[in-house]
């Protein structure tokens, strides 16, 4: 043993990094945009949909680029499915805004522009946080939400 009073603090040996790995594209690319809110329908039966576009290079997702249209209740459905089936703590959704749905309001309630924008931002944060979670990525419902044309509420829940 060499001089015991001075500790050996030299780095451990490691493999030099492959330059293609060092300068290559990162393998953790995942970006989801929630944008283009459209209010569909008339009168009492109106609702707002948002375009949800996902771009990724994670192999667990079948499509590397997908676009779907979703409404707030679809996001709620996803949250409930995950809370029931997976062990993760699901991030919070932006509020349900029930007060805004009451009559006799001065503004346009849930179709008010600033409210829709607030909600859009909240939904974008929600889905980005969720989709990056390794345990959420194993759930069928997340993949259906992000990449299937429409959500089949009678699907069989399960893991990917």
């Amino acid at each position, binding site marked *: *043993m060499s001089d*015991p*009073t001075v*500790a*050996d*603090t*030299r*780095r*451990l040996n*490691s*493999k030099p*990094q*492959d330059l293609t*790995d*060092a300068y*290559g594209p*990162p*393998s*953790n690319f*995942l970006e989801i945009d929630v944008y283009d809110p459209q209010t569909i329908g008339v009168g009492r039966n109106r609702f707002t949909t948002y375009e949800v576009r996902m771009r990724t290079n*994670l*192999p*667990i997702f079948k499509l590397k680029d997908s676009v779907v249209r979703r409404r707030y209740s679809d996001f709620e459905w996803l949250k409930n499915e995950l809370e029931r089936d997976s062990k993760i703590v699901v*991030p919070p959704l932006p509020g349900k805004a029930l007060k805004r749905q009451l009559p006799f309001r001065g503004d346009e309630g849930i179709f008010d522009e600033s409210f829709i924008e607030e909600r859009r931002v909240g939904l974008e944060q929600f889905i*980005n*946080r969720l989709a*990056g*979670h*390794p345990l959420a*990525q194993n759930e069928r419902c997340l993949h259906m939400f992000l990449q299937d044309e429409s959500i089949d509420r009678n699907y069989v829940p399960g893991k990917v």
Partner: protein
Amino acid sequence: MSFFSFGQSAEIDIVLKDAETRKRVEHKTEDGKKDKYFLLYDGETVSGNVNVTLKNPGKRLEHQGIKMEFIGQIELYYDRGNHHEFVSLVKDLARPGELTQSQAFDFEFTHVEKPYESYTGQNVKLRYFLRATVSRRLNDISKEMDIVVHTLSTYPELNSSIKMEVGIEDCLHIEFEYNKSKYHLKDVIVGKIYFLLVRLKIRHMEIDIIKRETTGTGPNVYHENDTIAKYEIMDGAPVRGESIPIRLFLAGYEMTPTMRDINKKYSVRYYLNLVLIDEEERRYFKQQEITLWRKGDIVKKSMSHQAAIASQRFKGSSSAEKALAQAQAKEQ
């Protein structure tokens, strides 16, 4: 009681032999304060003298005997009444009689066994102390003097590195390595983290040292975890093939040696916790136990001679050795 001039009382003062030259160390008290105490090692003789000073110089002090005790005891905070004495030595200094003047008594406990290190923890305390008692019919007069004991070890013969590959399927694979499994209290943890697969957005990585104090047995086991240190080793997002070095100096942290099942009452163990935090504040961690031991100081010849008498062969195998993916025996 001694406000009345009835009867006589006395003050007791315990003085260790070689008190001027003996080393004193800081030790935490139960309320968190630090005090200095004399340091003793296993096998050392404890000797000195007791000064009994009469408060009223004219009067006599009747007593039922004067004795000196050396006690090592474990006290569990939730069970204060029961002190578990694992060392209990008594020396009679004077037979029942009376003192007409202040007097000093010599005492000596030869080669006292002090098998465990002094420890003041969250739920348990192990202490050694000298107690001089002047017994009387109604009330004894006694004085305690705490001393601190350190247990020393030498470089372990077998000290393999800890090397393991861990991760989340298809998401994150890392290989971590720490150069040893047994570190002394002033040692350096040298290691590295090698990223095999990164499909998460990692923001930073840190190493924590966690102390776990376990008290109680059977169904009443209680663990108290305390994070002693948090040390950031990486800031930013790593990619595949990156190797992050670790160099963590232990001397800066207040730690004790690893204590396993002391007198079957408590354990104090240390763990390295490697924590990765991603962009969404999710934490991924891997905990690994390390064994800490106390190295004797290379000070004066007489002290190192004492330490040589007292040092114990390191025993026990760390669970890390069993979990190794690749064992590397290193020459010390």
